[in-house]
């Protein structure tokens, strides 16, 4: 088991902070959880804690970006995208400012805190905003690359991070390419398109399926927006159907984005695994992922039912 993506975020920020004095990190009283506290310790003058005030978090980040700084604003995904939605829209996206929102504790893998703190709508909310681009890294290594990319990205960026330790998928050689999907395995029976912590589970499921004679193509989508249309169209043409996997609502998330691309390019069956119009609840992350079917075993089951 590797680090959580939030841990990789905190470590990379400290590294970037030494290289680029314009980087400013903002948090709303959750810096120990979001891991921005490490940056705060290293560069206290460039760390802005706004207190428990997510709207002001985004408003100040917008002002800093407008001035010419490179702000990273962090809190839990629920409060970043939900509480502060309209500030993100009007103060950050409308004037197209260089603000990176790196939100942690996304999805049900938050665990015991329960449904009030488990954001399963954030991708849908951020994807809907003009100028906003959306990244969901799969592991610690990819997160490192994504955060480095973010410091140079022009325009608003939403990065969805998690609390839970996740399996390592990528090695040192990995480089993040914005807007590109990553094919992890080849196959022509089915394409499994996954993002975030579901990518490791898709990879595991593909190995099981292979043993049973089913060849699954696994595509990891780190960039939900702009989406890699080519890799999806190709999968639609070359494999029998597509299964999308995400720790997010199937309404407005990866599944919806993939369906849009296939319906416009090469209509095919797109089966969606995710949260079906429901909130999460308390429990261990493992128990919750099991209950809502976000496991390698369930991916195998769904693929077999549709092959």
């Amino acid at each position: 088991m590797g680090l959580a993506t939030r841990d990789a975020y905190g470590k990379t920020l400290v590294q970037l902070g030494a290289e680029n004095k314009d980087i400013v990190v903002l948090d709303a009283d959750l810096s120990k959880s979001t891991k921005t506290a490490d940056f705060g310790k290293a560069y206290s003058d460039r760390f802005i804690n706004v207190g428990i005030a997510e709207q002001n978090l985004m408003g100040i980040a917008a002002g800093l970006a407008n001035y010419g700084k490179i702000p990273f604003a962090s809190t839990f995904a629920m409060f970043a995208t939900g509480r502060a939605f309209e500030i993100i829209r009007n103060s950050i996206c409308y004037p197209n400012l260089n603000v990176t929102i790196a939100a942690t504790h996304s999805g049900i893998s938050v665990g015991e805190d329960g449904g009030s703190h488990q954001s399963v709508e954030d991708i849908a909310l951020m994807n809907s905003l003009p100028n906003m681009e959306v990244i969901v890294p799969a592991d610690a290594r990819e997160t490192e690359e994504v955060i480095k990319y973010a410091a140079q990205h022009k325009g608003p960026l939403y990065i969805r991070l998690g609390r839970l330790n996740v399996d390592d998928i990528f090695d040192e050689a990995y480089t993040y390419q914005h807007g590109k999907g990553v094919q992890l395995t080849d196959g022509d029976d089915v394409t499994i398109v996954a993002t975030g912590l579901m990518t490791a589970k898709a990879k595991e499921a593909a190995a099981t399926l292979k043993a049973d004679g089913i060849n699954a193509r696994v595509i990891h989508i780190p960039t939900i927006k702009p989406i890699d249309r080519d890799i999806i169209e190709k999968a639609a043409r070359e494999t029998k159907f597509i299964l999308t996997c995400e720790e997010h609502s199937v309404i407005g998330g990866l599944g919806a984005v993939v369906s849009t691309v296939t319906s416009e390019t090469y209509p095919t069956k797109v089966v969606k695994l995710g949260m079906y119009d429901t909130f999460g609840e308390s429990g261990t992350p493992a128990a919750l992922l099991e209950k809502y079917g976000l496991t390698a075993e369930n991916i195998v089951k769904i693929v077999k039912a549709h092959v």
Partner: protein
Amino acid sequence: MHYKQAALEMRKSIVDMIHHAKSGHPGGSLSATDILAYLYFEEMNVDPTQPKDPNRDRFVLSKGHAAPVLYTALAHRGFFDTELLPTLRKLESPLQGHPDSKKLVGVDVSTGSLGQGVSNAVGLALGAKLDNSSVRVYAVLGDGELQEGIVWEALMASVHYKLDNLVIIVDNNGLQIDGRNIDVMDLGTIDDKFRAFGLNTIEIDGHDYDQIEKAFATARETKGVPTAIVAKTIKGKGVSFMEDVPEWHGVAPSAEDLEAALKELSAQEVK
């Protein structure tokens, strides 16, 4: 142009451009005119030939619906041609219904959704502080706008981070769309609230030029805390039939209204 003369020219342009746009907010533009004229023609370090100069002072019209007062200040100060003013709110015009920094030269911050401007201003002032820069940041808020919670989040932060390069001006005309502040949602004693949050707070008559000059001078001298200037103003100031009438919040003057308004304004001598 002297700022007092500028205020008069701005008032004429405001009623004219809103008449041409057939919609807009004359009342709250006219109440803030003297303050913006003072800021753009006297107080702020701005140069129309260098609108993106990183060392310029920044202005945030947090009450973005008063866009005409900002547009007329910028035009008469020379940021763009005054002939653009009648294109207000028309398709493809850079003069959007609410200020858009991407479309119009001289607009530092896009505003319109109330409360956010003051939060953006705190970010700008923080950025200047981080650079040890002498840049100052000015934000004009409406009084009804103070009903937005984010305003108080931003004020807390402005004091916590000791932003003495920030001046927040409240255009306290006492009216909002649905009526008088006191009837819609009573704001209580505004200056006491600002003082309780820790800001250096100055109350003035927002149409008295001596008081305006003194307040901004005091703000400049104040160290360690941001300054709030609570300016008592009259909505529709300068056009008698618009003064203190809530209905003139968001209504365009007719051709007859415009003629009467311009006649009145032309008769006003600059003291």
